[in-house]
C-alpha cells in the first residue's frame, strides 16, 4: 500500500532529522483506533510562499508595465552600480516578502491540530497552500483525502439569491454534491434557525441571520480533512458556542482538522496538538498545552514590562523619575491568566522631601471602561525622603476577565497634586481559563470574571398518590 510506504519513509526522515520531540509528542497523544488512524494524511515539506510587497493590495495596471519597461535601462545601470549591496529580499525595484518559509509538517488522520501564532505569522498562507487556493513558491505537500476549507463564513453566497438557493450554491462551492445538500437541507435550515426566511433573498437578512445560515452550511460539510480559519470570530456569543460544540462533535467523528484560531481556550479544548508559527516559520509543534503556553509566553510580555535603564530618557521631572513598571504574574512569569491574577511592580526615584507620596494606578479595558483605581499611600505623615522607592501591588485572581488591559500611572503629592502622570504606560493581557465555565468555552461575557462560591442542597419530596418522586433544590450563594 502506498500510504504505508509513505509512512515508513516519513519515519526514517524523522529519525534522520533527529526530530523526536514533535514526533513522539503526538504519537503518544493520539490513540490509534484502527491501523488507518496512523496514516499521514497531510505531509508538507519545506513549503514556502513569496509575495511581492503590495501584490495583494494593488493590482497591476498596464501603465506600471510601461513605466517599468521605460525605466529598465536605468534600473540595469543602477543595479550594476549597487551590485555589492547585499539585501536578501530585494530584487531590482521589486521587494519580496516570504509569508511562509520552509514549513514542514505531518498530520495524521483523526488529529485535530491548532495552528496558532500572532497576526502575519503565516498561518493563513499555510492554510491557503494546503487547501490549494494558491500554489507554494517552494516545497511540496501531499494530501490524502477529501478536503474542505472554511476560510470565511459565507463562501459563495450571492446576495440576490434566496436562502434556499444559497444553501445549494455555497454547499456546492464548498464541495458538497447536490444529493448531499438535498439530504441535509432541513438540518441546515434548522441549525441556522431561519425557517421563515428561507425563500427571502439573503440581501434582506440581518447580519446575524446571514452568518448563522452561512455557518450552518459550512458546519454540515463532511470532508475527511477540514481547514478552518478563524471563522468563529463572527456571530453572537451563543451562536459561537453552538459552533464550537458542532466542531467538537466533528472532531470526535475521526476527521482531521487543521484549525487556525486566536481563541486559545477553543484551541485547548478542541485540539490534541498545536503548531506555533512565527514570522513565516513553524516555530514549534507538540502537545497543545505546551505550545499554547509557549505562544502566550511569547506574546504576553509585549508592552507589559517597561524598564528605563538610562535615566536621561526615563520619563520624569524635577519631582520624580520613573525607573520601571512591570505587570507580571505572581510567580514572576509574563503570562497572566484569570486564575493567577497579576502583580504590579513600580520603581521610581523621588526628589521631593517631606511630602505625602502616593502612587495611583488606573486600569482600563480595551473598550475604554475604567475597571478600578487603586492607590498606594507611601508616606502618610509627610515624611518622604529623596531616594529610590519600590512599590508592589497585587491584582487578585478571579477578578479581571480575559482580555487586554491598559494601565495609567500617576505619582501624587499630598493625595492631591499630581507630580507625574503616565497614561497607558503599560498594557497587559489576561489569558482565558476554563475555571467556572464548565464545558463551555470561549471568553465569558462580562467586564469582570469573579469566582463565586456557590453551594447547594437537596431534599427529596415523595408523593403518595404517584410513584414519581421529585425534589426541591436549593441553590444559594
Amino acid at each position: 500500500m502506498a500510504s504505508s510506504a509513505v509512512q515508513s519513509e516519513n519515519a526514517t526522515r524523522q529519525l534522520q532529522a533527529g526530530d523526536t520531540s514533535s514526533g513522539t509528542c503526538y504519537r503518544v497523544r493520539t490513540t490509534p483506533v484502527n491501523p488507518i488512524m496512523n496514516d499521514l494524511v497531510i505531509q508538507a515539506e519545506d513549503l514556502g510562499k513569496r509575495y511581492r510587497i503590495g501584490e495583494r493590495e494593488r493590482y497591476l495596471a498596464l501603465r506600471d508595465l510601461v513605466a517599468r519597461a521605460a525605466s529598465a535601462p536605468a534600473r540595469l545601470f543602477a543595479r550594476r552600480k549597487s551590485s555589492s549591496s547585499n539585501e536578501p529580499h530585494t530584487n531590482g525595484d521589486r521587494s519580496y516578502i516570504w509569508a511562509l518559509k520552509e514549513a514542514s509538517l505531518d498530520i495524521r488522520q483523526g488529529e485535530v491540530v491548532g495552528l496558532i501564532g500572532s497576526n502575519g505569522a503565516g498561518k493563513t498562507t499555510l492554510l491557503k497552500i494546503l487547501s490549494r487556493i494558491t500554489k507554494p513558491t517552494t516545497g511540496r505537500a501531499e494530501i490524502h483525502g477529501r478536503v474542505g476549507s472554511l476560510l470565511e463564513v459565507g463562501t459563495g453566497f450571492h446576495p440576490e439569491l434566496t436562502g434556499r438557493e444559497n444553501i445549494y450554491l455555497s454547499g456546492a462551492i464548498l464541495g458538497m454534491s447536490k444529493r448531499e445538500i438535498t439530504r441535509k437541507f432541513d438540518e441546515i435550515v434548522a441549525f441556522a434557525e431561519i425557517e421563515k426566511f428561507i425563500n427571502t433573498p439573503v440581501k434582506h437578512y440581518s447580519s446575524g441571520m446571514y452568518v448563522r445560515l452561512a455557518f450552518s452550511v459550512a458546519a454540515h460539510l463532511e470532508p475527511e480533512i477540514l481547514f478552518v480559519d478563524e471563522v468563529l470570530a463572527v456571530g453572537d456569543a451563543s451562536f459561537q458556542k453552538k459552533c464550537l460544540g458542532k466542531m467538537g462533535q466533528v472532531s470526535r467523528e475521526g476527521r482531521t482538522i487543521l484549525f487556525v484560531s486566536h481563541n486559545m481556550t477553543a484551541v485547548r479544548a478542541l485540539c490534541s496538538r498545536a503548531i506555533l508559527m512565527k514570522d513565516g516559520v513553524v516555530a514549534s509543534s507538540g502537545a497543545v498545552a505546551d505550545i499554547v503556553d509557549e505562544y502566550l509566553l511569547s506574546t504576553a510580555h509585549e508592552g507589559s514590562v517597561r524598564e528605563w535603564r538610562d535615566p536621561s530618557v526615563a520619563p520624569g521631572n524635577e519631582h520624580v523619575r520613573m525607573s520601571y513598571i512591570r505587570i507580571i504574574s505572581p510567580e514572576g512569569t509574563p503570562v497572566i491568566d484569570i486564575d493567577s491574577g497579576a502583580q504590579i511592580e513600580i520603581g521610581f526615584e523621588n526628589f521631593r522631601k517631606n511630602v505625602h507620596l502616593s502612587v495611583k494606578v488606573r486600569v482600563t479595558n480595551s473598550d475604554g471602561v475604567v475597571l478600578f483605581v487603586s492607590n498606594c499611600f507611601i508616606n502618610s505623615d509627610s515624611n518622604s525622603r529623596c531616594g529610590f522607592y519600590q512599590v508592589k501591588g497585587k491584582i487578585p485572581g478571579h477578578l479581571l476577565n480575559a482580555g487586554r488591559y491598559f494601565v495609567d500611572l500617576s505619582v501624587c503629592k499630598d493625595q492631591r497634586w499630581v507630580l507625574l502622570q503616565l497614561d497607558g504606560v503599560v498594557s497587559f493581557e489576561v489569558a482565558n481559563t476554563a475555571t467556572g465555565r464548565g464545558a463551555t468555552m470561549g471568553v465569558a461575557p462580562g467586564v469582570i470574571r469573579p469566582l463565586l462560591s456557590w453551594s447547594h442542597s437537596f431534599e427529596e419530596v415523595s408523593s403518595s398518590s404517584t410513584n414519581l418522586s421529585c425534589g426541591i433544590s436549593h441553590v444559594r450563594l
Partner: protein
Amino acid sequence: MSFTTNSTWRRDGPAIGTTITPQKGWLDLNLNLRELWDYRELLYFFVWRDLKVRYKQTAIGAAWAILQPFLTMLVFSLFFGRLAHIPSNGLPHSVFYYSALLPWVYFAGALQNATNTMVENQRVITKVYFPRLLLPAAAVTSGLADFAFGFVVFIGMLLYYRIAPGPAILLLPFFLLLAVLTALGVGLWLSALNAIYRDVRYVVPFLIQFWMFASPVAYPSNLVPERWRGLYGLNPMAGVIEGFRWSLTGHGQPPNILFAASTVMVLLLLAGGVAYFQKMEGTIADVV
C-alpha cells in the same frame, strides 16, 4: 498545472492523494480532465447561478435576450441594407442580419462575461479551491440560454419569410460549438489577464466592436477578395457566422477554405488559452 497525480477529491469515490508543488514553467502542462469531470456538478451550479442572477430585478427579464439581437437587426437592416445597399446574398435583410447576429450577440456576451469571471468571483477564488477553469466555462455556457431565446425568434422569422432550411441545418450544432469554443478560448486569455491587469476590462468592449467589423455580420464574406479568404478565416468568428448563415438559410458560402482556417484557429486559440490560464491558475488568488 501540477495537481496531477491521480485525481483528487472524488466526491463519492475513495480518497486519493493530491500533490501540491510550486508552479512550473510553460511546458509543465497537464490538463486534468478527470478532475474537471469530477467537478461537473459545480459547473452546473455556476451556470445555474448565472441564469438565476442575470435578470433579477429587471422589469422585462429574459425579454432582453430577444430585444438585443432583434433591435440590432432592425438598425442593421435600415442602415446597411436599405441605405448602404450592402448585398445580402438574396436573403431578406432581416434574415440575413439576424442569422449572423444570433452567434455574434452570443459570442460578444459570452466573451464579456468570461473576461470578468475572475474579478467578479474574487472572493470565492481566494477562499476555496476548485478548478478555476469552471468559471469562464460557466460564463460561456450560460450565454446559451439567451441564444436559445433568440433562436426561437429566428424560427418565427423563417416561418414568416417562408424560408425552409435544408439538411445543412444538421451542422448548426457544430457551428455553435465552434462559437462556444472561440468565446472560451479568448475568454480564458482575457479572464486571466484581467485578473492581473484591470485594463483588460476596458479593452474588451473595443475589441468586440472591432471584431464585429472584422466578421461578416453586416456584410457577406464574399465581399472579401477570394485570395484573402484564408487569411480572413483566421478570424474564427468569420467561419462561425458564415456557417450559421449557410446552415440556417441555405444561402451563402458552404464550408470552404475560410471555414477550415477558422476551425484550426479556434483550436489554436483554445489550446493557448488553456495553457496560459493553467499557468496563471495556481497564483491567481494572490493577484486577483
